[in-house]
């Protein structure tokens, strides 16, 4: 069974269209220009190394600085979508994720929201898609001026394991910090 792909991949990118633009005017210029292509962490780092195929990344989704990367399991039944937006400052990143929260909860029917020890303000929302066709887990967190969502879509009876969600999230958090420090 194939998991429907998320066109464009970014739900926070849509939210940042309103929030990010608002705060961009008084940012501290912490946003870092450059190649965002190295930001997303390939989930194959924590798999058998060949489980996921990466689609070409989408840079600056919805016109916002950052990147969206979609990784599809070789059997087509699972998909991981990572979106990292680089905002003017940490406050903007936090505001962006707060603004995207209704969209996150809206894409998970009866979602269970839990704190996650990832980055700053890490949160997971897990449950089923509104149409019941797939399991959905969304991890959100910020790291400095970066706002990140990682969405895990799977078969209804095969949700993403919590340990995998946290492990990939932490690796992504580390990659963002390394990128910011570079």
């Amino acid at each position: 069974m194939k998991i429907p792909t998320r066109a464009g991949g970014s739900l926070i990118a849509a939210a940042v269209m309103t929030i990010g633009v608002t705060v961009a005017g008084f940012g501290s210029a912490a946003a870092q220009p450059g190649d965002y292509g190295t930001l997303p962490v390939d989930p194959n780092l924590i798999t058998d190394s060949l489980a996921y195929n990466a689609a070409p990344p989408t840079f600056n989704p919805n016109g916002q600085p950052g990147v969206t990367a979609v990784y599809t399991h070789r059997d087509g039944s699972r998909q991981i979508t990572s979106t990292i937006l680089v905002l003017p400052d940490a406050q903007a990143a936090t505001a962006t994720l707060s603004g995207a929260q209704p969209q996150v909860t809206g894409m998970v029917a009866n979602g269970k929201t839990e704190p996650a020890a990832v980055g700053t303000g890490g949160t997971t929302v897990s449950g089923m898609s509104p149409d019941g066709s797939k399991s959905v887990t969304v991890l959100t967190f910020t790291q400095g001026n970066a706002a990140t969502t990682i969405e895990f879509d799977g078969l209804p009876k095969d949700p993403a394991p919590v340990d995998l969600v946290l492990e990939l999230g932490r690796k992504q958090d580390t990659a963002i910090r390394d990128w910011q420090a570079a």
Partner: protein
Amino acid sequence: MRKIGMALAIAALMSGSVATAQTAYAAQTTHDTNVYTQPSVPTLPKVQMLDCRGTTGAMGCGPGWFWRDGWRGWSCYPC
């Protein structure tokens, strides 16, 4: 005299046989030498956890785990 001796001998033989028979009978009734074995009580079946395919685990997976292509690719996953 000879007749008396013969009678005593016969009497002795007969009484000896009877006495022996009584002794043997008594032994059978009061000291049962048969060995009776206690019927074995069925023990509860021993449960050994197996993986989802009913084996002891493919690809080195332990009991309760099985090998499949999951979120982490090919690996051992809980049943």
